[in-house]
């Protein structure tokens, strides 16, 4: 009998899983269920090229919509799964139907964290996660408009850069004492802070938000300092939460994400999970972690597909990320901690430098800014947990390959 693999969630992990299944000549049936109206698409350009109007929507799709019919994939968009019935190995869908599976891949991703303050429901208050969010934001962005961004994470700052270029007056409100505090070193935060300010972005650190004001539509943001920032629109970027409810209700092990092993297997032998939603072991960190990243979604999508095919290959990659703001290409590899020793390679004033992170002398992470040549060698040093010579490391003329 033909085997059926059902994939829940139509994001990057799902797209990669399908690609890996196809590349391995999987001859069973595949069903893909997504709650958005779109076939799987790339999310990174949402806050960059798509928002700027530089990329056509169709360019974001991993496969043309016709691909799914050609390959006989049962594609169900604008559809949600309401329940997993593990004993019967079937799903209940929100259209009332049921769908049987032999193997199930949960690639349900994460959703934006909503802010719960007075005025949060006013029109003009946006979040950014999917295509529809960006189309909604883009329809309102215009030269001269006043945009307030809540949160200075890298997606927020990418939006700030795009909006600033479009002639929007941008204010960023951030609770922490520096921008991108969760992902980069203080030296890198300081650099980006200065770049945005020089471009005309008003950044206010250590500033929380207590209310949005307006009559039907937002007109101002009230900060915890008592300031009132005039706003024509607001974008809230305060993180995401993993979509674990289906797994939890089905009794799978869940702990800040669906718990999986290094081959993306959950506590049920027929159920797998991949992407932002998973809590997985990291040999590098020596503990379980949950990542919100494209690289992790793609690598786990592949690992899950291989495991479903009975050819498991443990996934143990150095996590990496990237962010494009203005003319700056930021690449991040490894996971730094606030207590790591940060060593700057090069002069930030040249807009081309790296910051390497050492933990007990071991090379654990890097941020490169327009310094592409450091990125791949650094990934290798991190994977090998290499102890490096600090003096050489601090010299940007010494290649990381020579350490």
């Amino acid at each position, binding site marked *: 009998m033909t085997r059926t693999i059902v994939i829940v969630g139509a994001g990057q992990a799902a797209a*990669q899983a399908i690609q890996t299944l196809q590349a391995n000549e999987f001859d069973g049936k595949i069903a893909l269920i997504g709650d958005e109206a779109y076939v799987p698409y790339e999310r*990174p350009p949402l806050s960059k090229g798509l928002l700027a109007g530089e990329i056509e929507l169709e360019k974001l799709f*991993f*496969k043309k919509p016709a*691909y799914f019919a050609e390959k006989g994939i049962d594609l169900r968009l604008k559809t949600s799964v309401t329940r997993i019935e593990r004993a019967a190995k079937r799903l209940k869908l929100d259209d009332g139907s049921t769908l049987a599976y032999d193997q199930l891949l949960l690639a349900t991703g994460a959703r934006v964290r909503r802010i719960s303050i007075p005025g949060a429901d006013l029109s003009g208050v946006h979040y950014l996660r999917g295509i529809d969010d960006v189309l909604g934001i883009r329809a309102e962005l215009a030269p001269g408009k006043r945009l307030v961004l809540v949160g200075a994470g890298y997606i927020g700052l990418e939006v700030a850069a795009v909006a600033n270029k479009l002639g929007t007056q941008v204010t960023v409100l951030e609770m922490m004492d520096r921008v991108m505090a969760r992902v980069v070193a203080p030296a890198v935060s300081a650099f980006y802070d200065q770049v945005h300010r020089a471009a005309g972005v008003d950044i206010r650190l250590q500033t929380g938000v207590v209310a949005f004001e307006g009559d039907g539509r937002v007109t101002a943001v009230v900060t915890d300092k008592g300031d009132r920032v005039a706003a024509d629109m607001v974008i809230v970027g305060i993180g995401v939460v993993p979509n674990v409810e289906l797994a939890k209700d089905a009794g799978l092990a869940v702990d800040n994400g669906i718990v999986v092993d290094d081959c993306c297997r959950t506590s049920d032998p027929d159920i797998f999970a991949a992407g932002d939603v998973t809590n997985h072991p990291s040999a590098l960190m020596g503990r379980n972690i949950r990542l919100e990243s494209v690289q992790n979604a793609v690598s786990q999508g592949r690992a899950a597909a291989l495991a479903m095919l009975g050819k498991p290959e443990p996934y143990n990659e150095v996590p990496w990320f990237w962010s494009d703001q203005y003319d700056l290409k930021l690449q991040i590899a490894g996971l730094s901690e606030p207590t790591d020793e940060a060593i700057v390679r090069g002069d930030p004033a040249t807009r081309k430098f790296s910051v390497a992170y050492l933990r007990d002398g071991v090379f654990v992470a890097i941020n490169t800014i327009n310094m*592409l040549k450091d*990125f*791949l060698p650094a990934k290798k040093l991190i994977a090998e947990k290499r102890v490096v010579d600090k003096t050489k490391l601090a010299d940007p003329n010494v290649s990381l390959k020579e350490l």
Partner: protein
Amino acid sequence: MSKIIVTTQKGKTRELKGESGSSLMEILRDADMGVAAICGGVCSCATCHVYINGEWGKKLPPRSEEETDLLKELESYDPSASRLSCQIEFTEELDGLALTVAPEE
């Protein structure tokens, strides 16, 4: 119809339809040719590495400094043939282009 001749990492040769206006990476990804292309084409990751076969390399626009900086650090780098497929836009002039997908690193 323009075509691209692709040799996969598994050594199979396939003929793909080349679509003007798409990058080589997009064409390879659309056909499940085993190109990860994780960063989606912004020259940030080097996971869409290919070798351009024979003389075709000379007909392509030259590598940017960014592309070279990434490529040079790959273990499978071949100075005469390596390219990031996301950085090459397919045009009618490239009809018949032959390439080999590079190993994953």
